[in-house]
């Protein structure tokens, strides 16, 4: 209170003012994803579709499925929906113009983007854990001869990495385009076009793999492990499709006028 009286007229005492912590901002961003009907349904559908896909495979597959098979079934719908979630996490501030409030409360915009990035990672890891639980429950029911074949730490990490790359790719397009529709369309159209080119232009296929993130990140699902060259290809294609758009988007958000 004594500091209050010491303040000069026309001055605001900010000595007791502390920045919202990154952890707090991440919490808020996670909450923003779940507190609207659209966001909540996206989260619910990721969970429900993951369960559904696994159950359908369990019922209709002729083979006795191992743990990893279930995990790979989960990766299909999650690989499509998690990037959409990451996109919406960013673009809702522009589409719904909530950025006016968000960036007035946290004027250092990079901190908001960082919080959104961390929130996206948390959602991705949580989705993976859901997939692991489902697979763990269904594997004994399926009754494969060697249900835990190839289940190793490194391989599990590679699957997480594949999911993260996909989600972060969505995030990157979201930041670069700042528009839900553009970003979602771009996220699905660009890899398709790149893959088609890689598929058709067979003479260049080896070289094009350095640019094709879809194909190179799919190699992460190979239980036999991947070579140094393949890692490098994942690296270069991530640089082009993830790092570059994030840098562009970051600068764009810093400069942009929030209206």
């Amino acid at each position: 209170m004594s500091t209050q009286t010491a303040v000069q007229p026309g001055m605001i005492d900010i000595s007791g003012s502390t920045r919202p912590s990154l952890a707090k901002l991440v919490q808020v961003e996670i909450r923003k994803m779940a507190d609207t009907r659209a966001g909540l349904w996206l989260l619910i559908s990721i969970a429900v579709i993951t369960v559904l896909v696994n159950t359908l495979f369990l019922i209709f597959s002729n083979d006795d499925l191992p743990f990893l098979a279930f995990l790979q079934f989960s990766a299909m719908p999650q690989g499509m929906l998690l990037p959409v979630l990451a996109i919406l996490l960013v673009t809702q501030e522009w589409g719904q113009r909530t950025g006016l409030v968000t960036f007035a409360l946290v004027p250092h915009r990079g901190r908001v983007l960082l919080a959104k990035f961390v929130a996206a990672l948390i959602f991705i890891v949580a989705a993976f854990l859901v997939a692991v639980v489902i697979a763990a429950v269904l594997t004994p029911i399926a009754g494969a001869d060697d249900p835990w074949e190839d289940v190793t730490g490194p391989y599990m990490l590679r699957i997480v990495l594949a999911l993260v790359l996909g989600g972060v790719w969505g995030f990157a397009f979201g930041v670069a385009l700042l528009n839900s529709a553009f970003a979602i369309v771009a996220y699905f159209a660009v890899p398709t076009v790149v893959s088609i080119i890689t598929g058709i232009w067979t003479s260049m296929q080896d070289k094009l793999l350095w640019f094709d993130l879809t194909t190179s990140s799919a190699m992460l699902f190979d239980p036999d492990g991947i070579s140094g060259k393949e890692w490098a290809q994942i690296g270069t294609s991530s640089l082009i499709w993830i790092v570059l758009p994030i840098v562009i988007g970051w600068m764009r958000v810093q400069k942009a006028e929030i209206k």
Partner: protein
Amino acid sequence: MCSASDSGTVERMIQVENLSKKYAGFTAVDDISFTALPGRVTGFLGPNGAGKSTTMRMMVGLTRPDAGRVLIGGHDYLDIPNPGRHVGVLLDASAQHAGRTGREVLALSAATMGLPKSRVDELLALVSLTDSEAGRRVKNYSLGMRQRLGIANALMGDPQVLILDEPANGLDPAGIRWMRGLLKGYADRGGTVLLSSHLLHEVQMIADDLVMIGRGTIVAQGTPAELMQNSGTYFRAVEQEKLLAALADEGIVANPVADGHRAEAESVRIGAVAAKQGITLIELRGADGGLEDLFLELTAETQRESYTDQTAGAQA
């Protein structure tokens, strides 16, 4: 440090200094400077597109100025660690996620600022949003309800300064009266309010000080009374012709307005002349709508060309 306050410097809570913003081909805000004082409601008045919103966005770091700066309580807004606790901002009541409930909108702000949940209920009560209204999604809100929600959001952090863009827009007369009471009370407790409006009568009801902006420049500032002074005195007398003649002798020019006349003089001078001549005054007051004339005049150039032509024709 002490000498500065001893020397009687005016306490400026918001200080806008030579602020400019250019967009491709046009200057939205052109080298403007003005202040807002604590304990007072400052009205930021100007027609649509005059640069009010751009100025307010620049105050809170949402738009980067090309030149100049804004100090709020002596600080650049970007240097305030937790700005919501010191400066309450409402820039567009409609800029809310349509799918969130009103309560959730406030809860997000409270969480960001590090305030307890109970603060949300306090603010909802303050702006008279009921529990069931707070539980509705914002897309089902009327503009008036959105404004109340926006005001609640701005007041959430118990700030010393309020920056509100068109807060009365969409409020009914009772709502405007409510807001006037709320903002007056806030200013009486020492708070600083800057609110924009494109409607003169709205701002006249609420503001202690006025800053008028037109085409990106400040065209007038002062208290309504000060600005009215320049707009003259309206008078009507039983012996109107005799009074006009007596005024003319004093060198006071009067022009016919409605049933009476308007003169560029203080009312006390006209009253004195009338008393000396034994003239019976029927009306003597600050020119009615003088501020409105001033507002239209000062901002006329920002209107469409054809409008200016029409008024010029009417005056001729």
